């Protein structure tokens, strides 16, 4: 006997929500999923009107759904954001080509401008060439470090204010567990923050922080969204693998564990007397780093000098002469990127002022994510 939706009591229920165990119809599922993301965005005050926001797009389900939902909510609640797709090409033949094709299709489907930056173009090395040089061990270290910087570089090229990534609740819970297992107290204190500022030059946030991975898949499936779903060809980090396995077992014992872990993570507080690394600027490329030379530069150093273990294991590089001597590509310094971005901004402001802006009366109180504390100011 077909079951009625637990929410609207009207349409037929076709899906059981992992988060609440309700049996609901398709339209109600879309509504609750989208509204929850909207609540997250509003209560965390993630954006301001006019923000230029880059959606980290990998072509996978998380980023495709993110692009779709961001666009939908931006229109429905009139956030006033300028949305862009920002994609990183690591240079993994087969895997990345296919997922980039998906991103290009997303660009057409969602009508959002797209910028693709590649490791090759930025650093002079693709993942494939890195794996050739260092083998299959530790390649995840390279990829993770390079991607983070690549996104920030791309964001500055477009003069963006904000990057959103598709990290979901499962990812956040997994990261909390992983940081506990590894004893990484500084990351443990930061990994539950929904938005990180000053970590690079652009604010980075995760609107899907409280969305279950299963529900994102369901959403993509029910909305018939186009995404690419194969695992990276290179194997994942050992500790994250353990954390993932543990999380899956835990979910079976208690389905709410994912949110419970996030709740705990948010409540944890690092003792005042614990030494946390101070952030500085890399002396080579100007990127944020807790050391004199940032991780990416150290890794590149090793690649270029044929010491692939540099920055990966405890190999010491003695007598570093001119590090740029053999460089295939000149790394653009972050100060240059910043300067260029500010210039773009200045030009944009000038163009705006030549046309009279219309007073914007469309800010709906319920959707107002700008900083007005007093609701009366927003009518």
């Amino acid at each position, binding site marked *: 006997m077909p079951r009625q939706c637990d929410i609207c009591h009207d349409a037929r229920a076709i899906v059981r929500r992992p988060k609440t165990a309700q049996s609901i119809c398709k339209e109600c599922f879309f509504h609750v999923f989208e509204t929850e993301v909207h609540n997250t965005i509003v209560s965390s005050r993630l954006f301001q009107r006019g923000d230029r926001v880059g959606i980290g797009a990998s072509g996978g389900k998380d980023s495709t759904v993110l692009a779709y939902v961001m666009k939908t909510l931006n229109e429905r609640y009139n956030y006033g954001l300028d949305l862009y797709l920002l994609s990183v090409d690591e240079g993994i033949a087969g895997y990345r080509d296919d997922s980039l094709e998906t991103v290009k299709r997303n660009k057409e489907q969602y009508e959002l401008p797209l910028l693709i930056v590649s490791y090759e173009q930025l650093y002079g090395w693709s993942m494939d060439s890195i794996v050739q040089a260092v083998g299959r061990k530790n390649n995840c270290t390279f990829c993770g470090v390079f991607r983070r910087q690549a996104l920030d570089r791309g964001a500055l090229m477009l003069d963006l204010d904000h990057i959103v990534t598709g990290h979901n609740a499962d990812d956040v819970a997994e990261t909390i567990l992983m940081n506990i297992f590894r004893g990484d107290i500084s990351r443990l204190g930061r990994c539950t923050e929904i938005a990180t500022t000053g970590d690079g030059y652009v604010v980075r946030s995760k609107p899907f922080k409280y969305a279950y991975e299963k529900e994102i898949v369901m959403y993509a499936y029910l909305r018939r969204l186009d995404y690419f779903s194969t695992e990276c060809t290179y194997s994942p980090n050992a500790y994250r693998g353990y954390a993932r396995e543990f999380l899956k077992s835990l979910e079976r014992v*208690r389905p709410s564990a994912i949110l419970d872990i996030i709740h705990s993570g948010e409540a944890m*507080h690092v003792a005042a007397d614990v030494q946390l690394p101070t952030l500085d600027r890399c002396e080579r490329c100007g990127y944020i780093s807790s050391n004199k030379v940032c991780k990416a530069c150290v890794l590149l150093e090793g690649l270029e000098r044929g010491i692939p273990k540099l920055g990966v294991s405890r190999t010491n590089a003695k007598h570093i002469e001119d590090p740029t001597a053999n460089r295939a590509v000149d790394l653009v310094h972050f100060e240059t990127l910043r300067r260029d971005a500010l210039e773009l901004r200045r030009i944009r402001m000038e163009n705006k002022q030549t046309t009279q802006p219309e007073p914007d009366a469309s800010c709906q109180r319920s959707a107002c994510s700008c900083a007005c504390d007093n609701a009366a100011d927003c009518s």
Partner: protein
Amino acid sequence: MCDSTDSQEQQQQQEQPSGRKRATSKPCIKCKTAQPSVAIRLSVYCKDCFVKSAIVKFRSALSKSRKRAPVSRTKVMVALSGGATSSAMLRLMDDYQHMELKGAAAEPIYAGVVVGHVDESTVFSGYEDTQICAIATDCGVDVVVARLEDVFVPDSDQPALLELVHATIAPSASRDQFCVQLAKNDGATPGRERLRALFAGLGSATDREDMLDILKTFLLTRLARQAQCELLLMGDSGTRIAAKLVSLTSRGRGFSLPLEIGAESRLAGGVTVYRPMRDYIMKEIAFFNLWTKQRSVVVPTFTTGAPTTASIDRLTEAFVVGLDRDFPSTVSTVCRTVQKLELREDALDALPCIVCNLPAEPNAQVWRNRLTVSEAPNAQPALSNASAALVTDVKAQHQSPFDVTAHLCYSCQSLLHFAKPGLALPAFCFETYREHVKTAANSTSNDWHQRQETLRRQIEEFLL
């Protein structure tokens, strides 16, 4: 999206699991001469050096705790479950007391040692309390015992219990609602029966183990206070603390966990807890007991002998122990993480949860509700009327149930959510609630005061 940004070199060394071991040809790492008999993490020790360093480790743990959370020259209560760790701890503490006597200082640091034990025989068969008392008398130490069912013994001359009427977490209600009512606690129902009913009424083995921990901590703290011990030693090994960090995190107890597993915790009522066994992994304790011929028993719990998926505690224990096998410094790394966590500022001021006595985070309900939408786009207030109607219906049958949601921590809300209606909570839950109401009555906020007055009238006959 793969986003590993592992940049610590140390982690790189540990990322690959340690391979199979070969017989060692190295001598004891301490005396460098004797043949080793045990390997702890990556070092080997001979029997004598191992036992000596175990003793030194205990003393240094105690003195560190004394510096961080000093107590007066008081009596010490050693919490003894009879298990391997607490038995080892008793032995080490007894040795410590006697050691100090021989030393330069004429008097021992602590005025005396008393063993506190909770008798769980009502709930678990095969319980060996004679053996446990023998472990204490072996050391020539007095024992005070509380029975688990003592949590239902009325503590004042107008006793009452809180009985669960209705518990729900959204989505089935428009907001979380935990309603309880008062039941008389005149001793007509024996404590033993109430205790069994309490556990039987909880929804899962995880919740039962959680409740058991809550009851034992409460009873031990009370025993310590009654014996005039300002200091209570709890026998949590490093292995246990590491597993508990993961387990408490998984249950949403992050807000209060420094009190549950920290090296030192100051509890209400003037009792300070030290955990001096935090630097020992289970293997060290087992070898210490083996070579010092220290007796211990196997302490039963709800999931003894059950598969790892039986409860969150079992799962995390198996997991941490398994991870430690592949990455030998896991337990010590995780324990170091515990030491770096402390209570948040709002936890220091927060009222204790009426069920677990630990600080209750102030907006647990709001947090949960914000993340979970369960209504149709044009939700009618009818839903909130429905829940009001529920309370009214219940009112008709019983006398004035009331909402205690704000007095519960996030994790205990889950615990009660899965519990059966009719569940009678231990006496201290009502006592704590009464304290909250009294404290609130002294507040100057008018609206709030009025609400509290309404509540107060409901429980007036029980207020002193």
